[in-house]
């Protein structure tokens, strides 16, 4: 494997002491294009959130080789954004340049050129002045991808990027993901469409609170693995005993 940009060391994540991701080990090498799959409630979004620094682990660590805030770009689920807020498409997308602009910086000529370029790339030319509330779900997702393009980060985290968008948008955005991969960026995407994963992703991590399988997509997506994932994800016990696995192992 190439140099790891991410390492999980006995990582346990969760809410209210209930684990959602349980004792995860592993590394993600630079330039990896990894699909994160698993049933609802399997901990995929939680894992991504924690990599982005939003959720401290209950146990263990995540090691990011480039821990600076600009070392990654994170696309949360669309619900995180308030589309009723009166802001234009151009303003929203331009915030991808936050680390260059900060609180006060102006876009400048080069910034404006880059903004135009990424809007053209996602097919939103002409939408610059439109309030984001007037965009369709697919168009809004295109705008968020344009912002990712401006962020120009070596590690890109996508949480269900294709939820509720049409086939054309999925195809266009998948092209961008492919290009990021070719540029040597590391991309981790939470996805539900297994056909899409099979045809677009070389590597997958099947998660169902624990890592079920990790490796080439063909091996990971075996019927036996998928069945096991479903069983494990359903097993939630309000009164589960305290886990001592780490203490026993040590």
């Amino acid at each position, binding site marked *: 494997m190439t140099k790891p940009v991410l390492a999980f060391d006995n990582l346990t994540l969760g809410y209210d002491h209930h684990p959602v991701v349980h004792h995860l080990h592993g590394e993600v090498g630079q330039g990896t294009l990894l699909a994160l799959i698993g049933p609802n409630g399997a901990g995929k979004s939680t894992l991504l959130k924690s990599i982005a620094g*939003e959720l401290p682990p209950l146990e263990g660590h995540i090691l990011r080789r480039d821990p600076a805030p600009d070392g990654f770009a994170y696309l949360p689920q669309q619900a995180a*954004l308030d589309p009723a807020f009166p802001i*234009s498409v151009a303003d929203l997308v331009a915030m991808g340049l*936050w680390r260059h602009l900060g*609180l006060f910086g102006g876009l400048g000529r080069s910034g404006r050129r880059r903004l135009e370029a990424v809007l053209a790339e996602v097919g939103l030319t002409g939408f610059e002045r439109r309030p984001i509330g007037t965009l369709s779900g697919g168009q809004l997702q295109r705008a968020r991808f344009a912002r990712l393009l401006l*962020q120009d980060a070596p590690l890109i985290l996508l949480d269900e990027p294709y939820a509720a968008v049409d086939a054309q948008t999925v195809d266009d955005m998948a092209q961008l993901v492919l290009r990021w991969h070719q540029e040597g960026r590391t991309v981790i995407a939470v996805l539900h469409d297994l056909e899409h994963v099979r045809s677009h992703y070389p590597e997958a991590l099947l998660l169902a609170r624990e890592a079920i399988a990790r490796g080439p997509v063909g091996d990971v997506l075996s019927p036996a693995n998928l069945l096991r994932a479903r069983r494990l994800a359903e097993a939630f016990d309000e009164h589960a005993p305290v886990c001592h696995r780490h203490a026993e192992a040590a």
Partner: protein
Amino acid sequence: MIENWLIDPFVEFAFMRRALAGGLALSLGAAPIGVFLMLRNMSLAGDAIAHAILPGAAIGYLLAGLSLPAMTGGGLIAGLAVALVAGGVARATQLREDASLSAVYLISLAVGVMIISMSGSSVDLMNVLFGNVLALDDGTLLLLASISTLTLLCLALGYRALVLECVDPAFLRSVSRASPLAHFGFLVLLVLNLVAGFHALGTLMAVGMMILPAGCARLWHQDLVPMLATAVATALLGTLSGLLLSYHAGLPSGPAIVLSLGALYLLSLLASPVGGLARRLRPRWHYTS
């Protein structure tokens, strides 16, 4: 003739000039805060925090009588405590900011009214509940002006972070450490402006200077910058017309100001071509693409 009607009250009476100055200061700070409050869907939360100021001010009153620093300080402490706890709860858990606030607001109101009525006259109680914009002294005027200056300064400095914190907080957290600062900074400005509003309009109507202008502005614009400008203009107009109304018709001034703002809001609701009812009456044409 009409000029006399408009200008004479302020030329003749110092208390009217003071009320106008105080109201203008309040408008400049509170209206933009109100726009963000509304856009964050926190209108009712603002109301609740305003009521939470009451017991703090009441305790200040209990200790020092009708004293500006004591009542301001008490109100500030109580308001900040409630706002920061609510904000902290919202950040740390899945609960929304307004969930626990309605309980806090009722309890605070009851405690505040009880403290004041145990120790003071009903005139004092009316003063605290409804404010007295016609009796602003030098200290209070200075306080209102300082708060509005500070508010405008902070909004100008933190504008970009605050906008992003409202529209896409998860994104802001991923690119910057400014998110908690923007969130809590906003809550502090909110409390400061509510305390300012409390001196002029009382705890019950302090939020009026925020939400009514913001509601008007939202109805006229789809962009944030003109929305902020319209909100300030609406607040200024409402203050001026409210004071004149109260002077000429002999009405209590606080309610007159809020009623003027309410009238502007109703007008916007009916007439605005962007968000108002008028747009339903327009011919239904559309572009080709």
